[in-house]
């Protein structure tokens, strides 16, 4: 799950995969804008065939939190 998510993240922001860690914050560390982040949710829904709750997704700060949340859905 983590590796798949990292691959998707690297399609959105200029960051090398080896620099994405579980404690990396989407906005502050990886440079996501809110539009990048919300657009990525749609791709995650398609990739993992899940339905993401927008409110819960908005509370996610780090890559690790996103992985944990996605794992509860699949």
């Amino acid at each position, binding site marked *: 799950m983590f590796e798949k998510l990292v691959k998707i993240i690297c*399609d959105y922001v200029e960051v090398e995969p080896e620099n994405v860690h579980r404690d990396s914050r989407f906005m502050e560390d990886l440079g996501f804008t*809110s*539009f990048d982040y*919300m*657009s990525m949710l749609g791709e995650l829904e398609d990739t993992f065939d899940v339905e993401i709750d*927008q*409110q819960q997704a908005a509370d996610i700060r780090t890559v690790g939190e996103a992985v944990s949340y996605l794992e509860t859905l699949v």
Partner: protein
Amino acid sequence: MMRKRKGYPVYPLTNAQKFHTFYQNFCPKKEVLNIGTSLTIEAELDVDMLRKAIAAAYERCDAMRLRFARDKEGTLYQYIVDKDDREIEYVDFSGKTMEEAAQIMTQWTQVPFKRCDSPMNRVVIIKMPDGYQGLYFLANHMTMDAQSLICFLKDVIEIYCSSMYEGVEYPKAMASYVEQLEKDLAYEAGSKAQQRDREYFEKLIDASEPIYNGVSGRAQLEAERARCGNQALRAAVNVSDSVDSALDVFHLEAEPTKRLLDFCEKHHVSMATLLLMGLRTYFQKMNGNDDVSINTAIARRATLKEKRCGGTRIHSFPFRTVISPEKTFLEGIYEIRNKQNEYFRHANYNPTEYFAYRSKKYPNQPGRTYEPMSLTYQPLTLKDKEMDKLGDIHYKTRWYPNGATTQAMYLTVMHRPDDNGLDFSFEHQVKAVTREQLEYLYYYLCKIMFKGTENPNLPVGDIIKLV
């Protein structure tokens, strides 16, 4: 249906492009879609090398080689030519005043492009009276938006720097315009995502009719009600009979800008959210309505490919907020943020379809609207690592008005690269909104934003009374 033009494959216009043609058709001044800007640097540039860098950037950016053509039925198509062989002009403004130079570039910005089979941009190497050198850039909005324009200029700078300075890498390739265009067209051809987005916006529109809020209060709406003898009317005409426009820019200094940015970072909200909250609270103060709608632009560039493909991708939608005076400033901010997030997920929806659906649901005479203004927040600037490689060199950017607008008032908020402050650029119809009205709006917008960010738990009603 047209399939090829001059040997090149043709493509239909995207929804974003159709939206531009929609309002250009109503505007007697076709230069309404022109975007003019300049970037100048306090350094002696190698003009030949800069010309080569520009030529290379043209080759790398499909959207800079975009052309339009009409078929026999009058439908507009687009195609991309392989090469653009135009000589890059060089204009030396030495001996003129800065104002004269700006005036000339404003004139350049007010010349409409020929629509068919013709280049839709112009790049001029300039030397300013103050010795700064750089580029003047003009593009038609059907082919570029502010973000792709900045991306192109950055590409020129990076190519130039890589050829001039040791250790500066050649920039990564731009992304394919056609690939993103085909994605957009696939979405528009009846995809599930399109249906989902349509359902979202139609539900929003169905909820209830919005109400118009005037920049100086209720007078416009009351006059409209009196004119048609309908006290329940909720929309008003806010544009004038002339599309002549002016650009008034207000500067917020770096220190107060930082305070606003710190608030945004602390509460995990964007500057666009804060600006919307500030603006809608201003209109609430002036009109006494909790219900305020403002048009907002969404750049629709999330993936790296979208960010580097050029073209125009902006979709604009009315953004309706209903925030009672009892709610705190922070609660209002979060309501707006949550709704913005919803918009972001459905932003591919066709804005023209939005307005058509709303007009059917709430029939109004042509020209009446619920939104007094439009807002664009542009976070991207030219200030990045490549500019830093030039050392401690000062540079200036400037936008030039095209002289026409179909809207009463359009606010673009941009970061100033030279000092990290914010520029509030109001493009407005001269006969519809005065400079004095804008000064008043800007003054209270700032007061509301600072009062709110300093006291986020204060009710909106108290903020309105205190400012």
